[in-house]
């Protein structure tokens, strides 16, 4: 396999139909399959055909987005990044396809019922437990008061383990937009916690270790 500079990769892949393009495409495919083999080596449910499919889907995205490569890294690093994203997105879709958002958010919208009254930790003293209970009561109330139904639902689902992209898919949005929605939710809660006299230090020390 021939070593290529970033410029050589871009030049070769920008000219479909000529020999250099075909060779570069096959080299890229082989590189991505090899990389995905390592990236997904800890997953027993990934077949060789999956690696080939993920590499092919990644190649389509790479070719479509060639103009977005900024040259701040090696071309192959950029390409591997895209391939890993493609693979994980599909694996998560498969893993979660039979799980509905309702199953992840069984408390009624807005009731913050998923926040318990205490952590039920026998290793902490009564003072720390009282502090934790007070903070959890405040957090439960503030979630009810501050968060939109969508934020409440998304927060619950993500906290219970559904990947961000899968929650986003079920809410007809995208991962980035959902991250920003949850960021807004956290900012609102943080502001209210601070307004109620609970500093970050107070809150975090109450829940350590």
């Amino acid at each position: 396999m021939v070593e290529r500079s970033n410029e050589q990769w871009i030049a070769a892949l920008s000219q479909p139909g000529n020999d250099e393009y075909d060779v570069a495409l096959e080299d890229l495919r082989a590189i991505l399959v090899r990389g995905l083999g390592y990236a997904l080596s800890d997953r027993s449910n990934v077949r060789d055909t999956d690696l080939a499919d993920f590499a092919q889907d990644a190649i389509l995205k790479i070719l479509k987005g060639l103009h977005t490569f900024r040259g701040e890294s090696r071309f192959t690093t950029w390409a591997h990044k895209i391939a890993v994203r493609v693979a994980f997105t599909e694996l998560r879709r498969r893993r979660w396809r039979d799980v509905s958002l309702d199953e992840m958010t069984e408390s009624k919208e807005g009731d913050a019922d998923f926040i318990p009254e205490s952590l039920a930790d026998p290793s902490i003293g009564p003072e720390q437990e009282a502090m934790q209970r007070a903070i959890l009561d405040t957090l439960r109330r503030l979630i009810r008061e501050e968060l939109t139904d969508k934020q409440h639902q998304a927060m619950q689902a993500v906290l219970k383990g559904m990947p961000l992209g899968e929650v986003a898919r079920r809410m007809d949005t995208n991962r980035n937009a959902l991250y920003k929605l949850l960021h807004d939710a956290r900012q609102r809660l943080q502001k209210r916690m601070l307004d109620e006299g609970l500093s970050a230090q107070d809150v975090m020390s109450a829940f350590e270790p």
Partner: protein
Amino acid sequence: MLKNIIRKIFPDRQKETNKLEAQKLKWLVRAVMTTRPDEIGCEECFQELDRFVEIQLAGKDAAEAMPLVQDHLDRCRVCKEEFEALMVALRALA
């Protein structure tokens, strides 16, 4: 189907299993209290990730060089998972 039957027979049990476990609750509390106004989203993190990993692979402190990317990876489980897999691949291929 079975879950619906269990829910009807044991409504309180369903309520209890709906509660967050301690570790996730601690994570939520920390996530709320350390929220920054300048956080970047998944898309921006993804845009910067190839540069971030190469800094890391060169043995330099990528977290110091690109603190907002590191901050996002500390908060976002899915981005972190992809970052770690990418590092595994690039280290193996080096």
